[in-house]
């Protein structure tokens, strides 16, 4: 023990030191009292909240039905297997050796997943999605040996008709990280499925439904002792205007075509009855994680199978545009129905250029009706020169060309209508000759159209009104009540009805006349109005076109078909349309139609005769 003055001093100093330390410890004790005694209840509540967890419950996605309520896209159960890290901690290696072969996954995948997880040890860690049912059966039989292994049922897309309508239906795909950035606000999470194209994308909001939640209270070991559930809301079913039977006929007919598209529509309402694009793809490959090689293959394919040619493919209309030239000439009084030009000998010299007709020997002298029937280029070259580009484009726009049709699957191409302005923009002022008007008159030049625009065009020729094509007929809630889609009213086009009747007469002759080019689209007992076309293009043989409707005097179905590089319209496209016309009118089943008039049977064409 220290003595004397030094000792006293050090005793004082040790007291100061101990005093300071004791003060700090006292503050700690005080704070401990505040936390553990005074505010204990508050913190106990917070700890209990921590022992609650919220697990999202997926909503079942709405189905997609055809117009008669038959399921085209349904759902199927899919099993996802997971492990709870906290429960398998000790014997993860044994589990791996037993369970990996059952699942058919490489060894040590489970090990590395479990060891890589340091937080949320009581949450299931996903091991395998879309597990084969045999593995689930094994899991059920060996429950006691496989502690910590869980599985849950998820809902996945089912396509009972395989590739049928792949482009119009679209596909769903797991959200990518990049998409999540923009969609997190809408309640999406990583691993959620989202419609990526077609109907699945357009009506994503209705189809996805609303996620539910399960609140689980867990013990210290993470075992669920109590759970409360807020049920998810099932997605709305979308009933389409598509007629399954017609779609099947269309798919079968288009199977002979390598690349092309078909749109069939009810010209009175704009209800799309069938839509096909070739080549196609299998939407089922997107239902689970898409292997990179599959994705690359689909994207790199030069034929572009994911590309919906019905709404996005743009083609020169070829001879199917001749009705526009004829109407432009007739309504501007350039000609009347009796006017004939210089007879067709197979060639025409214009400036220093030679323009030829598809029929090498020539058609002789024709009026406009027979020129349409025979699809004589020489007649239309001479007509085009007299009509001029701008009057032509004005008429083409009346039929909705050059702008989106408003169909409810996106995206849609606008196409191009040839005009002085369009040529100036494309080729530069003074860089193109008057001869372009001749090309445009037969549907060549810079004009580009999509198949869906063409079906609207030919419908308008038949009915005198332009409609908005659409695919959704109604939305059916979980309780079965249907909310019908109100189609926008048909818009009458500004063309004299008598003039349209003349054109219609010419289009009937295309099917029935001696020189007609679409005999193979005939339907026994009905008059078919149509027009073939062969769109010349730099990629080889001409694109084979057909547009038409039936019955001619009161159309119930209009079709536009294009087969890329397939040759003459009369050989390839017209027979495909014919198959569809016959299926619509002759097969027993009739498309359901809420309000439209019944189909007129038979009947002459007297009224259409000039």
């Amino acid at each position, binding site marked *: 023990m220290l003595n004397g003055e030094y000792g006293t001093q050090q005793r004082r100093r040790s007291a100061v030191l101990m005093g300071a330390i004791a003060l700090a410890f006292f503050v*700690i004790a005080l704070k401990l009292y505040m936390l*553990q005694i005074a505010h204990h209840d508050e913190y106990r509540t917070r700890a209990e909240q921590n022992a609650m967890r919220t697990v999202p419950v997926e909503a079942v996605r709405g189905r997609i039905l055809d117009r008669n309520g038959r399921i085209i896209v349904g759902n199927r159960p899919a099993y996802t297997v997971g492990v709870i890290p906290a429960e398998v901690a000790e014997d993860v290696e044994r589990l791996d050796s037993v369970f990996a072969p059952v699942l058919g996954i490489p060894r040590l995948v489970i090990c590395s997943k479990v060891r890589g997880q340091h937080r949320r040890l009581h949450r299931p860690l996903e091991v395998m999605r879309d597990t084969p049912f045999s593995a689930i059966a094994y899991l059920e039989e060996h429950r006691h040996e496989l502690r910590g292994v869980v599985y849950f049922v998820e809902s996945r897309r089912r396509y009972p008709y395989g590739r049928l309508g792949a482009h119009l239906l679209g596909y769903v795909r797991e959200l990518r990280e990049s998409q999540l950035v923009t969609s997190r606000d809408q309640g999406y999470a990583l691993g959620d499925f989202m419609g990526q194209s077609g109907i699945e994308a357009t009506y994503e909001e209705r189809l996805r439904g609303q996620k539910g939640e399960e609140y689980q209270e867990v013990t210290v070991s993470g075992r669920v002792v109590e759970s409360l559930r807020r049920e998810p809301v099932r997605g709305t079913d979308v009933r389409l205007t598509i007629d399954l039977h017609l779609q099947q006929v269309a798919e079968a007919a288009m199977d002979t075509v390598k690349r092309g598209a078909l749109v069939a529509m009810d010209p009175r309402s704009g209800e799309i009855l069938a839509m096909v694009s070739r080549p196609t793809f299998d939407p089922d490959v997107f239902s689970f994680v898409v292997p990179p090689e599959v994705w690359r293959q689909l994207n790199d394919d030069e034929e572009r199978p994911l590309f919906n040619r019905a709404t996005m493919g743009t083609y020169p209309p070829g001879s199917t545009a001749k009705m526009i030239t004829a109407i432009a000439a007739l309504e501007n009084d350039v000609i009347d129905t009796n006017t004939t030009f210089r007879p067709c000998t197979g060639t025409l010299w214009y400036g220093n250029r030679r323009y030829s007709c598809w029929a090498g020997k020539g058609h002789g002298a024709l009026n406009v009706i027979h020129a349409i029937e025979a699809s004589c280029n020489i007649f239309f070259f001479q007509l085009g020169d007299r009509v001029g580009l701008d009057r032509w484009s004005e008429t083409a726009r009346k039929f909705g060309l050059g702008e989106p049709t408003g169909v409810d699957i996106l995206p849609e191409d606008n196409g191009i209508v040839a005009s002085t302005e369009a040529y100036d923009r494309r080729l530069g002022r003074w860089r193109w000759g008057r001869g372009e008007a001749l090309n445009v008159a037969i549907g060549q030049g810079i004009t580009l159209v999509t198949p869906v625009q063409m079906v609207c065009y030919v419908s308008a020729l038949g009915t005198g009104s332009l409609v908005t094509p659409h695919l959704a007929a109604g939305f059916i809630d979980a309780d079965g009540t249907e909310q019908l889609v109100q189609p926008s009213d048909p818009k009458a086009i500004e063309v004299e009805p008598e003039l349209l009747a003349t054109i219609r007469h010419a289009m009937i002759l295309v099917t029935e006349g001696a020189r007609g080019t679409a005999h193979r689209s005939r339907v026994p007992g009905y008059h078919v109005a149509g027009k073939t076309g062969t769109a010349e293009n730099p990629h080889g043989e001409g694109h084979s076109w057909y547009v038409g409707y039936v019955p001619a005097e009161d159309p119930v179905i209009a079709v536009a078909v294009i087969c890329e590089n397939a040759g003459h319209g009369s050989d390839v496209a017209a027979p495909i349309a014919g198959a569809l016309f016959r299926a619509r009118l002759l097969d027993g089943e009739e498309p359901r139609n809420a309000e439209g008039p019944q189909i007129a049977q038979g009947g002459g064409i007297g009224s259409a005769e000039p």
Partner: protein
Amino acid sequence: MALTARHLGELFDWPLALAALGLVVAGWVGLLSATGATAASRMQGLASVQLLWVAFAFCAALAALWLPVRFWYGIAYIVYGVTLALLVLTLFYGARWMGAERWLVLGPIRIQASELGKVGLILALSRYLANHKVTMTRLSHFLGALAITLVPVALIRQQPDLGTAAVYLAIFLPMVYWAGLKNLHLFVLVVPIVNAICAFAGWIPWMAFCLAFVGLLFLIRPPVLWTVLLVVVNLTIGIITPAIWDRLEPFQQRRIQTFFSPEKDPLGAGYQIIQSQVAIGSGGMTGKGFQQGSQTQLAYLPETHTDFIFAVLGEEWGFVGTLAVVGLLLLLVWRTIRMGLVTNNRFASFVCIGIGSMIAFQSVVNIGMTLGLMPVTGLPLPLVSYGGSATITVGFALGLVLSFGLRGYE
């Protein structure tokens, strides 16, 4: 020296030894919870490893107990030099861990040189200050002691480990005070530190500090020259503190920000403080029971085996448990400082003050952190937290204190 009955009966400091034993047991119980059957697999087995560290610490304590005081006096500067060398090695070959380089890997052993350095500093400072010719009234002697402290601090600042560097200063101040530093000089030393902390906290705490500072100046009435110096230095600190802020490592900034407003960052660093408070608060009077703490077991608490082990004890053993641990720590510190007062050996006296201050500071900072009273610094709780270097260092230090008790009257 032969151990006699008198040694064990009267001179051996049983309260100190038992307090240390109690803390080791408490730490091990906490560790069993933190690494229990339901916790993460990577931590299982740490409890048995800690037993090995405790055994090593016990051996270190026996070695300290066995060798005479003059032996430690003789090699004080050598120990200091070796620990400095280890710190330098850590600078160049340190392994990255949790955002800071603290570990020196020597074959299978990972050494936290900054822990060993504390003992080196205490021994070196004690030998320097024990010299009768050294007096704190002379500036050169004071600066000498400061230099001994700042060399390892500078090496640790480089690593960077702010908390451990603070421990070195917390060892230095009480020791120079013990060596006879005047109250006025102590005031001059402590005030700038308080000033800097207040300036970090924001304008309002700093204005409060200024008021208190002026009040104290009037109370103490230091000589005019000192007063001017104090005012100038403190104003400068108040102004340049925000500038220093910009030069801190981002994780250091985050820790300080989080300390002042944990709720602002509830998912980041603030998460630790909030969950720790919830764990301790939910423990209540008697706690949830061994391995029954949901905060611990559901892995809401971070670093349960090291930095936040006190929170595990608070959740599972309640107010009773935490008060027991705090009480044992206070007992340990008190017996150590008392030993510094009763021993006749001047060197031993300084060593005790240094060790007592070190244990007290680390305890207050670590527990304060789990309670939200202090920023998150990563300082272990002596004898309770898991860790080899720290446990062995404290074990050895307590061995020295017990040894002084046996030999102090010689």
